[in-house]
């Protein structure tokens, strides 16, 4: 806006300032366009310059028309519209109507003086109707100003006077021009805002739908997992009965085969459980039950659980700790699940004669639990993907050694981070891996 052209009287400056304020206080498009015409009318009335009606009309490029957007709520305007055969928003002018001075002003980007309303209201009105309304309104002349948004003309403002245009001073014309400049700014911002608002509304709706879908997905996963577990329980249980000679003696080969059936069923059940856990985590439906958790004690329990496997696989299991370890703030079931998962991985990848040790230490006001093994380690190229969903290690030899689902580490990471802790690893292929997680100390809150 070129401020140097504004008439430098306190009143006109105040009027401009007030109108600018509207722009900053109102962002909704509908409100802005109404406030613009009303405040300009009020300000002009205050300046006693003899303005009766102020109209804002904007171009709709898509439809190729200029539409009346807002009209000042002045007595003359209301009387005129009350007498008219058309409603305000029916006054739509095609951009091809080159004789209409609104369209001319828009195309030439110049103000136009209107002596006869037929020049701004036809089409769509008839000449007679236009003149009849002009008489009712008491308007002598109108002046049409283009509303410019930079180089682009977006519409016009129509100022209708009870006086002759020749009675308008240069200062007055400049003031009107300044109003029109502010208008384009206001419309620009309000348009952006309204677009933003409608986009944000659409996003809200989409988000709501996604939440509903997520709930359905969660219900589906819950029910599906139940439905899947039932036949898997039957397979597991009957296989167990046969393996335990409840249906008579079986041959060593049958036993070998049925052990594979049994282990595979266990893996399936485990997979279903993990998928259910992930669905709950991702749906934000997991709530931790924090307690003062003695991690040394928990490590001992896990060691006991793995004792049969340790002797079966000929692995040494140890617990390392220095001194007394303060309790961590942890959900017992979840941390137990993480420990079982990490120790289970170590067991999978450590050959006979190896070692798996759990260390519990205090470091930087956190309890750190490390699970170290002398296993095959993780190849450099696989290290990045290790905590990803199904991001399990792939490699020519490694893949055949891996059971599991590739969900365990992802789940562990989610659980540890929910506690405000961290999980990481160090690994050297051929020498072994150490997975470490940290948990905050229990403070009683």
């Amino acid at each position, binding site marked *: 806006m070129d401020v140097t052209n504004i008439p430098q009287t306190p009143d006109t400056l105040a009027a401009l300032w007030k109108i600018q304020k509207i722009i900053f206080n109102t962002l909704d498009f509908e409100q802005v366009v109404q406030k613009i015409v009303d405040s300009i009318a009020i300000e002009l009335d205050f300046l006693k310059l003899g303005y009766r009606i102020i109209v804002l009309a904007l171009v709709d490029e898509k439809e190729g028309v200029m539409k009346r957007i807002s009209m000042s709520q002045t007595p003359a305007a209301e009387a005129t519209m009350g007498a008219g055969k058309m409603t305000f928003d029916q006054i739509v002018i095609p951009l091809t109507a080159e004789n209409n001075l609104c369209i001319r002003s828009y195309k030439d980007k110049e103000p136009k003086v209107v002596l006869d309303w037929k020049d701004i209201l036809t089409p769509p009105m008839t000449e007679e109707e236009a003149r009849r309304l002009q008489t009712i309104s008491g308007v002598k002349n109108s002046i049409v100003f283009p509303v410019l948004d930079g180089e682009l003309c977006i519409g016009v403002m129509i100022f209708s006077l009870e006086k002759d245009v020749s009675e308008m001073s240069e200062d007055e014309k400049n003031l009107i021009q300044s109003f029109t400049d502010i208008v384009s700014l206001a419309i620009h911002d309000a348009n952006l805002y309204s677009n933003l608002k409608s986009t944000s509304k659409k996003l809200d709706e989409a988000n709501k739908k996604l939440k509903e879908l997520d709930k359905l997905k969660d219900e589906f996963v819950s029910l599906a*997992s*139940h439905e899947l577990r039932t*036949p898997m329980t039957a397979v597991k249980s*009957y296989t*167990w*009965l046969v393996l335990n000679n*409840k249906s008579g003696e079986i041959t060593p080969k049958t036993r070998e085969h049925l052990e594979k059936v049994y282990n595979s069923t266990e893996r399936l*059940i485990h997979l279903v*459980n993990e998928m259910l856990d992930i669905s709950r985590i991702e749906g934000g439906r997991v709530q931790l039950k924090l307690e003062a958790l003695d991690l040394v004690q928990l490590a001992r329990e896990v060691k006991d659980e793995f004792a049969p496997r340790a002797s079966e696989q000929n692995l040494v299991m140890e617990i390392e700790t220095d001194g007394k370890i303060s309790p961590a703030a942890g959900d017992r079931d979840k941390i137990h699940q993480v420990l079982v998962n990490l120790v289970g991985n170590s067991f999978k990848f450590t050959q006979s004669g190896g070692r798996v040790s759990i260390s519990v230490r205090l470091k930087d006001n956190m309890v750190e639990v490390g699970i170290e093994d002398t296993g095959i380690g993780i190849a450099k190229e696989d290290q990045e993907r290790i905590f990803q969903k199904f991001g399990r290690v792939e490699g020519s030899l490694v893949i055949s050694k891996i059971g599991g689902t590739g969900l365990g580490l992802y789940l562990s990471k989610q659980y540890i981070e929910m506690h405000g802790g961290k999980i990481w690893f160090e690994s050297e292929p051929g020498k072994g891996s150490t997975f470490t997680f940290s948990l905050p100390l229990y403070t009683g809150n």
Partner: protein
Amino acid sequence: MDENLKKRILIIEDDEYLRDLYMEILTAEGFMVDQAVDGEEGYQAVTRGGYDLVLLDIMLPKKDGIAILRDLAQNPPEGKNKVIVVLSNLGQESVIAEAVKLGARGYMIKSEMTPEQTVNEVKRYLAEST
């Protein structure tokens, strides 16, 4: 074994194979076992009462396990049952909490148990109740 002969257990389970499984492993231990194939049949049996242990599934045709527990809590049967334990594959914490609130003594997830573990748990619950 002799003690077991006097113990009455009710299984409310809609899956035929699992019903057969629990019948088989529990009768092998010498228990007297009744079975119900859906929620309504189960509720009728349980209101007649007199069981030392009821193994109750949650997702059932006609009447679910939670509704059975709720009705029992509101209208306790005359011939009371000693212990009701949920044996289900529905593992949601909220469902478990609801069942326990409504009077279930314990909650077992079927798929997590071997037949041996199920039998041991049944014995443990029965020992607790005597």
